């Protein structure tokens, strides 16, 4: 058979591909460092995060009340605030100083101040002002206090209006108090909760970051184990660039097919997060995401000289990446400069697409820009991976040739010297 025929090359290439894939899987499962990032972190981290945010909202924020009026009306108001799920009246204070002391001791996170003129103003048909003071160490405290007080004031306002109108029917009361009624609907996150909002983004990010770390770690090990600190060993199987890149990426894809089905399907189920994705859509979307992540990581991994330095280089990026993706901080408010930077990372498109598919029930057509971007990234990073690997192969060949040359040189000189001795 012709050794240079296309058929032979392809056959050899595929054999090499599977050999490399097998070797890569073996090294991954033998290396405890890689195992931590390929198995332990993807298994445990989503659980920890989901557990942290599992309560979704903050309930019963402790608040202090200063009731300077102390009338039946003001007490009714306080009761209504206390009855809301968001706020708990922690203490009744005689004056503001006492309430401020509670804030300082973090026994309360807000003060509700009812002025002395409260019931008098209301009786005279004038406006009265209730002041709330919020500790701003957490936006959710502020939100809870504002919400509870607004609700209480609205419902009291209504009952006051009804009394003053002196209508005869309930329908008249309703129309008189609110000429236009309204209904607020929370789409896709019915509890307005924190977990349903943040966890999907974290899940997608975990996939990219653990791939980045695991592949970087395994590349660093490969270099350290190699005598010339080359990434690619000089064996026969490692001849072609394509078979190395395909072989390795196929191994990672196999591992992450399992891991991501756990992260993206099982974890949301365990913690009862919103999950209305269509299976085919999700699968079709996650495939390019995984491929883009894998090739992106393989490209980055060539910068890793030393096993451990990949952690030093990549770990801290998780937090900026979460913010830049447009979840924590609204995407429309991300400055253009950072938006363009964010296009480098598969996670940006992955997070946006996954949230829309998983949480908002979008089909592939609605996430088309992200879907295309991911395939584009897959293509680009595949090419860059091939280029950097090709370069690495050339370097490792160069090293081997150098060694061969130096051996020969040594051999020659030794022969020469022995010849000289003979003469």
């Amino acid at each position: 058979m012709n050794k240079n025929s296309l058929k032979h090359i392809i056959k050899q290439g595929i054999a090499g591909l599977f050999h490399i894939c097998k070797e890569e899987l073996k090294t991954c499962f033998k290396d405890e460092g890689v195992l931590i990032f390929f198995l332990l972190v993807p298994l445990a981290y989503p659980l920890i995060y989901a557990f942290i945010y599992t309560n979704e909202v903050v309930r019963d924020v402790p608040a202090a009340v200063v009731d300077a009026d102390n009338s039946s009306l003001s007490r009714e108001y306080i009761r209504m605030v206390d009855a809301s799920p968001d706020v708990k009246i922690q203490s009744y204070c005689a004056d503001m100083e006492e309430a401020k002391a509670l804030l300082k001791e973090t026994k309360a996170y807000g003060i509700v101040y009812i002025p002395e003129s409260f019931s008098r103003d209301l009786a005279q048909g004038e406006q009265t002002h209730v002041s709330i003071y919020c500790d701003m160490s957490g936006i959710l405290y502020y939100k809870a206090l504002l919400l509870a007080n607004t609700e209480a004031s609205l419902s009291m306002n209504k009952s006051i209006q009804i009394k003053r109108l002196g209508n005869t029917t309930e329908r008249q009361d309703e129309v008189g108090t609110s000429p236009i009624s309204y209904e607020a609907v929370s789409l896709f996150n019915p509890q307005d909760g924190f977990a349903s909002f943040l966890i999907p983004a974290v899940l997608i990010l975990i996939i990219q970051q653990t791939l980045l770390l695991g592949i970087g770690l395994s590349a660093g090990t490969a270099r350290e184990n190699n005598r010339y600190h080359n990434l690619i060993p000089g064996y026969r199987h490692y001849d072609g660039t394509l078979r190395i890149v395909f072989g390795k990426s196929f191994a990672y894809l196999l591992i992450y097919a399992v891991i991501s089905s756990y992260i993206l399907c099982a974890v949301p189920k365990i913690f009862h997060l919103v999950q209305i994705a269509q299976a085919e859509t999700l699968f079709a979307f996650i495939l390019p995401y995984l491929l883009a992540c894998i090739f992106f990581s393989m490209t980055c991994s060539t910068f890793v000289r030393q096993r451990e330095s990949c952690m030093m280089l990549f770990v801290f990026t998780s937090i900026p990446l979460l913010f830049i993706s447009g979840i924590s901080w609204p995407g429309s408010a991300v400055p253009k400069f950072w938006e363009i930077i964010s296009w480098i990372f598969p996670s940006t498109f992955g997070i946006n697409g996954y949230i829309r598919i998983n949480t908002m029930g979008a089909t592939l057509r609605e996430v088309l820009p992200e879907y295309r971007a991911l395939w584009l990234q897959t293509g680009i990073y595949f090419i860059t991976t091939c280029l950097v690997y090709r370069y690495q192969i050339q370097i490792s060949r160069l090293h081997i040739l150098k060694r061969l040359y130096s051996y020969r040189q040594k051999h020659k000189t030794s022969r020469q010297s022995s010849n000289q001795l003979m003469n």
Partner: protein
Amino acid sequence: MSVAVHERFIRITKREIHRIAKNPVYLFCMIIAPLFCYFFFTTLMSEGLPVNLPMGVVDLDNTSTTRSIIRNLDAFQQTQVTAQYNSFNEARKAVQRGEIYAFYYIPEGTTEEAIAGRQPKVSFYTNYSFLIAGSLLYRDQRMMTELASGSIGRAQLYARGATEKQAMGFLQPIVIETHALNNPWINYSVYLCNTLLPGILMLLIFMTTTYSLGCEIKENSAKELMKMADNSIVTALMGKLLPQTAIFMLMILFADIYLYGFLHYPCNGGILPILFAGLLLVLSSQAVGIFFFGMLGSLRLALSASCLWGVISFSISGFTFPVMAMHPSLQALSNLFPLRHYFLLYVNSALNGYPLIYAWHSVIALLLFLLLPFVVLKRLRNAMLHYVYIP
């Protein structure tokens, strides 16, 4: 031959400075990465409160009244009406495409019914998959509806001859005045950056400390270090980590100057308490790094532990999602993270300007972290003298 302790100490320090200068990983982790993050987070959230969030409108009524409602909605600072849709489904699809965060739905006949006193109903649909954008848009939509409802009511009252004071007294008897203490702009950058920046530094300190210790064993130079320290692990550690402490202190000093001096974020308790908190954060993070390395003994494991512990810090320290809303076991666990205590100190001193004494427990907690290295001194000495790096 006997060399005084301080001379050994200085020699080790000099050696460490050389090591830091030689390895670019240190330059990256100690200076480039923190500076990048300072710049990144403050410029990302430079708006403070997001403005002009895109939302849509489905106006099936299309009268001058509903158009004025939409115009007024658009005039709110946080809201920008970017598109009008012909039906509910079109708007819903736009939400799913991520073009808008919310939409306002006005059914046909709204104006007519309102004038006739038949109480029409408008709806607003807010996508809470994006919590911040959703909350802000919800607030504006609700406010707008109340105002629209109020304006109709006011017109009716004026028609009956009520004065403005009387009208307002009827329409809104109780008014809520909100005072967001020390962050009246509800600036998200103030709310997040003050903890995020030191948090990033903490993560990098965790890793740099374990990395620099582990590298001694990996590069087979631990014995040399111990020899220089006359086999005293305390001298070796102190000498080795002092240059890092100095650099990290400079970095946190820079963060404080940048945040409070340049960006003028609230620092009501003066600069000294927050600098003190920063110093404690640096030292306690280093202590945690030493502890991880001493306990686990291998560079790889200790570094992984540092990463994992460091990254969880951001969630569990409670500056985004309050600790009080977490499971009780997590509330207890949160005390084991230095960032949690730094956050409490920051809130107490810089944000609220209370005396340091109100946060004494956090100071004590951070000081307790400094005791951690003593627990592992013996193991560490053993590791430095006898361990061999296994790849």
